[in-house]
């Protein structure tokens, strides 16, 4: 469903993504892991047609995202890094907008909107403007927008950040449910405990290059340990001024 062959993106002298090759099958939940600035968002932007690659090839649903941008956008749902919400629309209006734009019949849009608002505990804030929403509410709204048109592939950038544990569990269950129905999920996350529970494929990236790519069952050790070994080893420094004496 997602195929990248030697995908590369350069910004001047800086190589953000370097010769990335990966395959994600239909119905898989692929977790794309790496530290900040590793090239995750650049990769997602190339997969969703927002950024053309410098070289290499990417196919999503069998389409070239650069050449068939509009057709691809109709088939995918995206939770972007900045959520992509309009300050002047309410939570509910964002979902109605999505239904209208993706050609979902109005009655069906209303039904799906009600179900999503209920499932994500957004009913109480359905008439709140995005500008007045908490970050968690904004995240849930953008997540609901990605799901509403029933896409073939879901791209989710940090879906579990800033949401409460119950909503995170609901989101996780929803993603597992859609993947059982054949929807491919490609997500980035820093919450490794959540990734460990949900992902069927793990891809790790460091400085633009893939350093691990396997099914979740093939990990040789706990995900966190493996991540620290391959991607980034935490260094804890003692801050001597932190303590009981105050200045």
């Amino acid at each position: 469903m997602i195929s990248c062959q030697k995908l590369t993106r350069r910004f001047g002298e800086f190589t953000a993504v370097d010769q990335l090759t990966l395959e994600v099958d239909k119905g898989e939940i692929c977790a794309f892991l790496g530290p900040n600035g590793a090239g995750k968002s650049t990769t997602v932007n190339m997969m969703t047609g927002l950024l053309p690659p410098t070289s290499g090839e990417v196919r999503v649903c069998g389409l070239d995202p650069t050449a068939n941008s509009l057709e691809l956008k109709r088939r995918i749902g995206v939770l972007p890094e900045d959520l992509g919400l309009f300050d002047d629309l309410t939570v509910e209006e964002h979902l109605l907008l999505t239904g209208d734009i993706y050609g979902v019949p109005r009655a069906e849009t209303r039904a799906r909107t009600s179900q999503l608002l209920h499932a994500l505990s957004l009913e109480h804030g359905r008439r709140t403007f995005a500008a007045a929403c908490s970050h968690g509410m904004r995240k849930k709204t953008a997540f609901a927008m990605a799901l509403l048109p029933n896409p073939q592939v879901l791209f989710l950038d940090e879906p579990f950040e800033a949401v409460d544990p119950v909503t995170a569990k609901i989101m996780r269950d929803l993603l597992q449910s859609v993947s059982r129905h054949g929807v491919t999920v490609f997500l980035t996350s820093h919450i490794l405990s959540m990734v460990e529970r949900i992902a069927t494929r793990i891809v790790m990236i460091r400085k633009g290059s893939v350093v691990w790519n396997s099914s979740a069952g093939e990990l040789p050790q706990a995900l966190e340990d493996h991540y620290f070994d391959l991607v980034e080893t935490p260094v804890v420094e003692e801050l001597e001024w932190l303590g009981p004496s105050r200045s």
Partner: protein
Amino acid sequence: MARPIAILRSLATAYRRDWTALQSLTGNNFFLLTVLLLQKAGTFVYLIMALVLFFPLSTDPLRKVPRSRLALWPLERREQWILRLVSPWLNPLTWILAAGAIWSAGRTISAGVWVIAGVFFAAAFLLSHIPTPGRALFWRRVPGFPGPLEQLVRKNLREILSTLDFYCAAILSLAVLAWRWFGPPLPHEALMAMTVLTVGALSSYAQCLFGLDGEGGLSRYRLLPVCGWQLLLAKDIAFLAISLMLCLPLAPLAGLGGAMLVLAVGRVPAIQHPREQTRWRFSTGGAIGNGIVQMIALAMTISSIFSISVLFLAPAILIWLGSLWWYGRDLDRRR
């Protein structure tokens, strides 16, 4: 005293930046038109602009500190009082009003004027403290437009309603409405001139159609499976609907034709040189040259439709449709 001084210093910086947003006025077609063409005769326009600006500038500077942050800071009661008493003086309007009051002491007529201004200021100052569920309620009632672009049109209408341009144009339109209702008959040409002024007051917004969408909105536009012309159409429907509504007491068809030309001429800065805008300020255009062309096209279209024939609306529509198609493709390339 160190804590209140630190807070007041930060507040002053924030307030100074807020006032620099007023420089948007200098890139506004309506202001430029008045300065260049009407000059001293444009006093009533300056008054309208000052009136429209008065309310957003009268807010309490202390509101710039988030309420939760203010509550969390370890401030003593005395320090809170200092902040409360000193912060209003960060607003230059407070100084202007105080100077006016001192100057007019003993002169009953001008003192009355200053009292009215002071009451307006105090009202706006106090109103800025009241939570405004009413505004959210009003905003939610803004109608959409039947069809797949309904929510986008609704959002765009809300954006236009949060610029001062709209309120300037609304005051002009309502003034003519009141005059036609209660005053002697207006000369024929006056309607045309007021239509030019009303659409002219809105015209700068046509140069910065995407200025209030923010990063989130622009990112969503890139993700939506719609063509560029559809995004432009949603913007245009909102602009034309507002223009038509405000021109109803004036010359509606001429106003509509003028608004279409204003949109067509404003495409280049709106799409190729987008400028971020600030809410509750005047829209600021991309370039003076474009603003002048917009105003000339506006005046010519309105005078042709109004004075010669309504058939001149047809070329205005064609030019607008052509710009929609051409710049829609341009927008697609840039998305």
